[in-house]
């Protein structure tokens, strides 16, 4: 019996496509975290072990009132216990403070000792806030962070230019909550989210935006309508990639430029000399792709931006295969002509 296959390959592809679509939808639906896992994450607040911090007991004197959204005191006149709401800006969350970079400090390292009396004296609120450079400037131990360069970049930025003294480091970095990120975090997405939320704190919230201006806050989504795949860009790069001048010597650029100077050319990122390698991917690149293992290293090489290929190995392999093909064709053609 002669076996005669008579299935057109188009049918096979059609069936495979159907199966693929099915598998795809299954993967896609399991991709989004279910409400269950979100809930589980919310239910386990990391309790901080305060005994690990030598200043914790002393700080509790302040945090007794400033550690949550309400505080209680006894009114000396009426002898009544009064509970009041703490202004949101004055609440210091212990869970956030004790994982921040400044967790070892005591409140009175930066704030006046006079705060130890309650009610606090009125003139205390005129107390000057220290900026980053006030403590970190000229310190050998912090030289690698280049605080001086950050300060001068910041002074040249539109933020300083437009709002002079009113715009301080505090606008983006709260010393009570600041935690080093871009320099040490292996999770790129986290760094991106962290940094973008800093910008959105004002540029996405009119209440904060109008603290320094009476202008109407521009709609970010509308302003970026020209950007293809907006959502992808917003979750895969930081605002400062395009809106800050990158000096390459800093891990995080601080020279935020005016909107008409922002990067608008696709190939600034989507090219071999992508500016992303000087900033966003800097830490990742320095981690060495070799660590990822051979296959992942070879295939995923340094290709992090969609489009331009940074992987030289793949380029060389492709070129060799292509050249060999052309060579074989040429030899074949020459032999054919000779044998004519």
């Amino acid at each position, binding site marked *: 019996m002669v076996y005669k296959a008579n299935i057109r390959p188009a049918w096979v592809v059609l069936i495979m496509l159907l199966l693929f679509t099915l598998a795809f939808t299954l993967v896609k639906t399991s991709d989004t975290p279910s409400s269950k896992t979100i809930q589980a994450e919310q239910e386990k607040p990391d309790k901080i072990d305060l005994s690990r911090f030598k200043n914790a007991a002393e700080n509790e004197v302040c945090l007794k009132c400033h550690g949550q959204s309400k505080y209680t005191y006894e009114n000396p006149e009426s002898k009544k216990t009064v509970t009041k709401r703490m202004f949101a800006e004055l609440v210091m969350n212990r869970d956030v403070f004790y994982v921040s970079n400044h967790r070892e400090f005591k409140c009175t390292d930066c704030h006046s000792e006079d705060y130890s009396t309650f009610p606090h004296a009125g003139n205390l609120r005129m107390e000057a806030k220290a900026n980053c450079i006030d403590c970190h400037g000229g310190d050998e131990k912090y030289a690698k962070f280049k605080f001086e360069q950050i300060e001068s970049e910041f002074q040249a930025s539109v933020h300083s230019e437009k709002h002079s003294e009113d715009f301080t480091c505090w606008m983006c970095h709260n010393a009570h909550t600041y935690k080093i990120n871009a320099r040490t975090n292996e999770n790129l997405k986290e760094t991106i989210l962290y940094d973008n939320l800093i910008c959105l704190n004002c540029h996405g919230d009119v209440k904060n935006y109008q603290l320094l201006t009476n202008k109407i806050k521009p709609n970010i989504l509308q302003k970026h309508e020209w950007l293809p795949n907006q959502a992808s860009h917003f979750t895969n790069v930081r605002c400062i990639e395009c809106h800050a001048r990158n000096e390459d010597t800093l891990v995080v650029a601080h020279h935020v430029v005016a909107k008409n100077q922002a990067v608008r050319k696709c*190939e600034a990122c989507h090219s071999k000399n992508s500016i992303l390698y000087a900033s966003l991917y800097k830490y990742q690149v320095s981690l060495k792709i070799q660590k990822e293992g051979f296959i992942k290293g070879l295939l995923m090489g340094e290709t992090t931006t969609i489009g331009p290929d940074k992987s030289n190995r793949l380029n060389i392999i*492709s070129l060799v295969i292509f050249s060999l093909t052309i060579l074989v064709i040429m030899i074949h053609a020459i032999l054919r002509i000779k044998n004519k």
Partner: protein
Amino acid sequence: MNHENQRFYLYPVWIRIWHMVNALLCLILIITGLSIQFSNPGTMVKFSAAVSVHNIAGIILSISYALFFLGNLFTPNGAYYVIPVKGFITRLKKQFIYYTIGIFKKEDAPFPVNEESKFNPLQQVTYVVLMYGFVPVIVLTGWGLLYPEITVNSFVGFSGLDLTDLLHIFAGFTISIIMCVHVYFCTIGKSPVSNFISMINGYHESH
């Protein structure tokens, strides 16, 4: 030389039109694709222009591929793409030996072209792998890159978008290589240009 000067009408009008459009689109896609891949400010085609042209050409290619697919699902031309399983490897070997040795000794082609079989075994696998393997892969991954929000986020630890990108580039590279070989093999005919003329007037000249 038993088929001397025989002519067979093997390429219906729709195949010829499809093929013309397809070849043109592939050339455009390869040029723009390469300039996106190796983009550097100031060189080759302007990046944003290359991206736009690549996207539009890709969309037209998807439509033209769909027509090819449907055409070969329902018209008689699809029968030429059915690979008879039995003895296929042997026939593949025979054709391979013809291309590497026999052709230089002026032997007759082992599988002469006629109405029953338009493609020799080697041509057949190439076309099937190309048209039902690499082309659908490049079309699907292309759409996945055009609308990244529909692409799976991660796949066994890799970024879904990176994998899609890699697959797209791999398919593109392979199609480019096959295209070079394909065009060269088309010069093997009654005369070096007769196969190209076939693709214009529809008639295959036997030799």
